[in-house]
């Protein structure tokens, strides 16, 4: 094989490897982002009957690892475990149905093929039943996601004190 052919072949292989690396990275990022989008969608879905509540809580739980830890900041004790979270999602549904959750500015940073660091802003829109006025609360979070069995799940969520 001539030297020119060798160089061309090496360049093609290098470009292919770079494309594969870029595509796998961006697809993993999209998968992690989808976990958060799905969580918000499930969180905002409303249901009132018992089976619906259980199914909704189960869908919410699918976004998290069994040993997930959620730290909501001062005044709120940490939530340990997916089962606890699902129980809360089921019990608090009448209250959470009063507001809409949006996750914005979701930034995904792949630490390695199976671990990602994520930051996002949670927006909660609530409409007063009395005045009809809408209020918006915003809170910043940092999260960790892990991939197991080809599926990304959230393993940790921590509230960030933007203002201390």
């Amino acid at each position: 094989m001539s030297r020119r052919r060798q160089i061309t072949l090496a360049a093609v292989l290098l470009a292919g490897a770079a494309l594969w690396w870029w595509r796998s990275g961006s697809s993993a990022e999209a998968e992690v982002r989808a976990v958060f989008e799905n969580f918000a969608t499930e969180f905002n879905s409303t249901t009132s009957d018992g089976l619906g509540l259980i199914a909704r809580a189960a869908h919410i739980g699918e976004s998290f690892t069994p040993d997930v830890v959620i730290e909501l900041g001062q005044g709120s004790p940490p939530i340990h475990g997916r089962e606890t979270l699902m129980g809360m999602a089921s019990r608090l549904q009448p209250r959470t149905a009063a507001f809409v959750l949006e996750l914005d500015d979701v930034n995904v940073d792949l630490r390695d093929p199976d671990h990602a660091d994520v930051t996002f802003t949670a927006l909660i829109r609530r409409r007063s039943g009395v005045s009809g006025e809408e209020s918006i609360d915003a809170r910043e979070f940092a999260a960790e996601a892990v991939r197991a069995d080809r599926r990304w799940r959230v393993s940790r969520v921590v509230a960030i004190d933007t203002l201390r």
Partner: protein
Amino acid sequence: MEPTYHDSTLNLVNRIVYRIRAPRRGDVVAIRLAGPNVLYVKRIIALPTERVSIIEGIVEVNGAPLIEPYVHSRQRWNYPEVTVGPREYFVMGDNRGMKMGDHDFGRVDASRVLGGLVF
């Protein structure tokens, strides 16, 4: 930031101004959370290394009461003295008519201040 700025209105942020000069007390600034799409709008109350406290709703900076004509209603908040870090600002909203726990305020890292509000 009621009554100076109302919820759900369009505001313009000057992102160049703090490349030219440092933020000043009284400036209304946009503060970044996780990204550029959701921002806090707050007023700068104290500058780096200053001491801030709130006594019966009156803000004190370095032990002297701060005159705040932009605050139209205030509750009797009490907040122990803190010293602002060398790369921080102390920010508050103008609406102090609610419970202190319902109001987001405090020290913010200078890197989060995206710019000043033009209107």
